[in-house]
């Protein structure tokens, strides 16, 4: 196979992987995991 054809095939594979979500396996986890909210409480602060 010629180098230009190899490059084209590689490009197609990369595009297909991106479309099917192979490159973003952590995405669904990011959406479902709730972010921690930190509450900083102070009493009698001077400034």
């Amino acid at each position, binding site marked *: 196979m010629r180098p230009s054809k190899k490059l084209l095939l590689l490009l197609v594979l990369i595009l297909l992987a991106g479309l099917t979500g192979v490159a973003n396996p952590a995405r669904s986890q990011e959406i479902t995991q709730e972010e921690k909210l930190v509450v900083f409480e102070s009493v009698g*602060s001077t400034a």
Partner: protein
Amino acid sequence: MINQIAQEYANQPVVVVDYHLDILQEPPLFEPPQARWDVIQASVPPGTDLALTWTVVDSGRLYHRGAETTEEAYNAYTAMIDDALAQPATAEITAHWWQDGSSIKIRAVVTNNSTVTLSAENNAGVYGIVKENGVLYETHTTEHPGLNAAKTAITNLAPGATDMFEIEVPDIDPTDWDKVEVIVLVDYQTAPEAHYEQLQAAIATQALYTQPKFHAWFLDEGETFVPEFTSTIMGNPGLTWNALSNQVWLEVEETSGLVGDSILLTTNGGVMNPGWNTAVVTITDSSHTYTADVTVSIYKASPGEVINRIYLPIMTRP
């Protein structure tokens, strides 16, 4: 210092609440809201002398007291916040709030994702903490004053279980309701006379409110015409509502609708008495859970009275 920290963490999930404590009088004239003061005090062993400024994160899992220098305070507070940010949330909270007179009512759905059963035995609770953003009260030194807080005890919430809780925080009198922020927090006491630990907190969204919520008109002697005016009903998407006026002189068109719709208000100045005339339109959602209101105040001049008006220049950028 605390204002600076709040600013530096403004783009991160961190909320700062500052409570006032007046120790010059015995008993103190001002104390933090009792519900949170109990939690904060548990961060040190009972009987420990007071040392201010007293700061906690994660309901007292980490604390710092009596910093001598600004540098010490800055380093200690940022280390506490960074540590707390690195801890995972062990509960999920979805919360809404609405105003009922001077009270704030909250409805929160909590899922316990921890391994601890939340119950009366470990003093578990869901808290509503009300603060006002960007306002410096005489009684506070930061622009993050905590106005009040309340707790609803959790009687039994096993790991993995979900339940709904209602909290009412009374006596809220902010300078500006638009600057009010409501935080819902879940915590429990790790052992008798030991510190508490926060599972998660969330900023509650306002379930039902009106914009604007106040209209005022002034009628000169003999004048009766008031142009029609509107308020928009805001809140949870998809919520349906009904509107009802408590005065016959204030008519509401479109007495029902969806969040995002507006009510058209019309009135007849001819039927009003001299002086202030006030009407309240109450908006109630179709499940009769949430309420909001629009207040209309119209001042009608008495015979011979002249209403003085001052017109201020307004400068705007192009």
